[in-house]
Structures are given as C-alpha cells and as structure tokens.
C-alpha cells in the first residue's frame, strides 16, 4: 500500500514539476531568449583554366586551409567563371553565365571594386576578400572575418531532410525564428556543389536556384515554417551536396547556412 501511495506521490510531483519547467533551452524557439550559431558561407569566384598567374590557385589553397581548420563551421561554394568574353584563355569548363550575374550582384553591393577574380564573399555582403598575393594573404583576411562572424548570434534555425528518388531530389526544410521578434519575408538559396577530385575543384558549384530563390513568408517569434524544394538531378550534374542559405527577401546578407550531403 505504501509502495502504491509512493508511486502516486512521485507521479504527482513529476507532473507538478513539468508545469514549472523553464523554457531556458537556447535552441528552443519558444524560449524568448533563444539564439544559435551559424556556419559561415564562403562564396568564391575563381578561374582555374588560366594558369599564367597563380592568384586563383593561392585562393583555392587558402580555402582548403580554412576548410581544414574550421571544419563544419564554414561552408564553401566555388563558382568558376569565364572572366573574359571571347578569350579562350579564360574558358573555365565549370563556368555558367548565371555565376557572372551573381558575382555582379555581390560586387555591386560591396561597391568598392567591380568584378574581378579571385573574389570571395563571406556570408553574402558581410566580408569580401578580393585578389591574392599568396596563400597566407588570402588565409589571413578570411580568418579575420570568419572569426568575427562566428562570434555573432543567429536568430534562425534551419534544418532539412533530403529524399532522392530516381533523378529527383526532394528537400524538406524547416526554418524557425529564434529570439523574441518576428522575421520578415525570407529567401532560401539552394546551391549544389560537387567534388571533381582535385584541390582546385573540391567545392565546385554545379548550379543554384539563383536568381529564383524560394520565397518564405514572415515567421513569428518562436514559430517554425516548413517548406519543400524539388529539384531534378541530371545525369551530368550529379552534385555531392546541397547548400541551403537563408537571406532576407531584399538583402543578400546571409542569416543562416547549412549543408546536406545528397544520399
């Protein structure tokens, strides 16, 4: 009898305790003080076909060093570009016309210098490392900005599940607004990357949904938006991973980025 009474008392105590559980988990969107951290997105514009000058190769070597040091705290996307129209010296086989438009968008937003390669944009417009004079000169500038941004709080959580069926990839994603203020309209950028095997083609962008990113409506504080992106995977394409990056609708500043390996 005492045993049974003890059991009820214990259950009652636990239930009472549950009512009083504070929502103090920093990753719980319902916690008004919640926040997280984000990996830093490095978008590099390079050309590896022109070998007379080593600038692009120094930049890519620096990116490998950064990748090795920071691990999953950085996400790298390398856009290969034909830098000069009609000049076959600069014809990079991984280049696509839309990459030039994306480069222009970033360079215009920065405003200090027009498009030139090698050029790295950090979390959109939050840092730019233009040019190279050595591996160290690129690495040092990257490190300075990355360290600063890693200290900043992110008020978004982003998760995704990938399902591959034949040549179709379905991305089910969830965006949560952390903290105590609502988020305005957002955009989800989808970037596919592939490892072509060499140190200079480790993170090549095969395509992206630029300039038509997925639109996400405003999200109230503590709420979660669920969305889906369906992409066909061509046989020639065969990306290894997909990068999802979140920006405000009218901004190129990256709020949150994740990378998922395609199964």
């Amino acid at each position: 009898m005492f045993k049974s009474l003890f059991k009820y008392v214990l259950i009652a105590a636990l239930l009472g305790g549950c009512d009083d559980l504070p929502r103090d988990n920093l990753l719980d969107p319902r916690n008004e003080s919640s926040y997280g951290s984000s990996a830093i997105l490095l978008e590099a514009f390079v050309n590896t076909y022109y070998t007379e000058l080593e600038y692009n190769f120094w930049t890519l070597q620096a990116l490998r060093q950064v990748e090795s040091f920071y691990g999953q705290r950085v996400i790298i996307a390398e856009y290969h570009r034909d830098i000069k129209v009609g000049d076959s010296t600069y014809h990079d086989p991984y280049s696509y016309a839309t990459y030039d438009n994306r480069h222009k968008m970033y360079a215009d937003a920065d405003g200090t210098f027009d498009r030139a390669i090698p050029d790295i944009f950090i979390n959109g417009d939050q840092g730019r490392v233009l040019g190279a004079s050595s591996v160290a000169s690129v690495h040092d500038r990257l490190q300075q900005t990355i360290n600063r941004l890693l200290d900043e709080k992110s008020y978004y959580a982003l998760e995704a599940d990938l399902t591959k069926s034949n040549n179709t990839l379905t991305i089910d994603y969830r965006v949560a607004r952390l903290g105590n203020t609502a988020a305005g309209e957002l955009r989800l950028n989808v970037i596919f990357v592939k490892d072509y095997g060499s140190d200079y083609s480790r993170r090549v962008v095969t395509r992206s949904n630029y300039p038509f990113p997925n639109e996400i409506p405003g999200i109230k504080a503590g709420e979660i938006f669920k969305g889906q992106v369906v992409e066909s995977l061509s046989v020639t394409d065969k990306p290894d991973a997909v990068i999802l990056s979140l920006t405000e609708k009218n901004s190129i500043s990256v709020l949150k980025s994740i990378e998922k390996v395609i199964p």
Partner: protein
Amino acid sequence: MIWALVACEGVEELINANRPPELDDQGIIVSADRVAPFDTVTASISATNPVEGPLFYEWSAAGGSTGGRFIQPADSSLVRWIAPLLGGSYRMTVKVSNNRRSVEASKAIEVVSSAKPLVDIREPANDAYFVVNQQIPVEATAQHENGISWVRLLVSKDGRDSLIQQLDGNAAGVYRFDGLRAYRALVGKAILLVEAQAANPMQTKGNDSVIINIEGIIEGKNEP
C-alpha cells in the same frame, strides 16, 4: 617782447620734453640673423635722447615656447641673446625710453634646427590591403620648426625605390598624394615611404613608412 621770448623758450622746452628717443636708421644690429640652437647673438641699438636725461633699454624675444634667454644684465644698448634649442623664427625687440616716452625696434632671427622633419603617414594604415589597379590614397603630415621645402611619396619593392609624387611644403603641414595606383609588379608586400626635407640650409630629411599588401586580380566580366 622779453616776456614773449621767455614764453617761447618755455614752449620749446615743453615740446622737447615730450619727444621720444631717436633710433639709428639701422635699427637693431645683430652679429648673425641665422644661427644654430644655443648660439650667442650679440645685439645692439644706437639711440639718442633729444631731451635731458638718461635712456632706458628693455629687451625681449618672442617665438617658440621660451623665446630664448638674454645674458644678464640686459638693460643697456648692447646685449647677448642665447638661441633656444627649438628652431624657428624668433623676433627680438628693444624698447628704448626716456623719462617721458618710448620707441621700439625689432629684428627677426632664424634659429636653424638640425632636427629631422617629423613625418607621419595618416593613410593608409599599416598592413592595409589593395588590389592591382586600385587607387591608393596617401595622406601624411610633415612638420619642422623651419618649415618644409618638399614632401615626396616613394614606393619600395624588393629593395628598389620608385618616386611616385613630390609636393611643395605648405603651411598647414598636411599632404595628400593621389598619384599612386597599384600595379602588377607590386603584388605582394610593398613599402610606402613619405620623406620630407626641412626648409633650412641644413636640409635635414625625415620620413615615415607603412607596409601595404597589393593583391593580384584578373579583371573582366561576362556581362556589362
């Protein structure tokens, strides 16, 4: 008639009594008007008194922070002045008085400083980054007690200096160079050197330098 003559004498005395000392046209004569710090300068003034009574001499010097120092006594027509450490333009003044009025004369003395001009590069910051074809604005201050005759901007790469621009000295002491655009041969670390020459016979030179990084790029675009 006698009364009138006596009265005229009294008026003349009255007028004379109110006349100031008269200085020689040469004014203050100095042993040298361009001297080094701590040199002794002998200065004299020749004055006459149109009325009865003694003349009084009061010497002073202005300029710099101290104005220099007179060897005492310094209350006669001839004095000795020790030039201060700080170079620049000084003005020696003598006030000559009789019992009623006084008159002044002054003389400029240049103290030539052997100190180097003080140069400070305000822009760009040390270790700043630029890319090829980018304009590199350079701003520096250069100061010297005797003024600055010219300021030069040089860029040094692998031990070789190249003169980029030269500006004349100015009173404000601020110099802005707009003649440097990064070029491919500078890719890597380069030294920006600003050098200034003092505007005095010693022509001492001072300088300041910063290291800058020039990053190589390939310019071009697919779309306008």
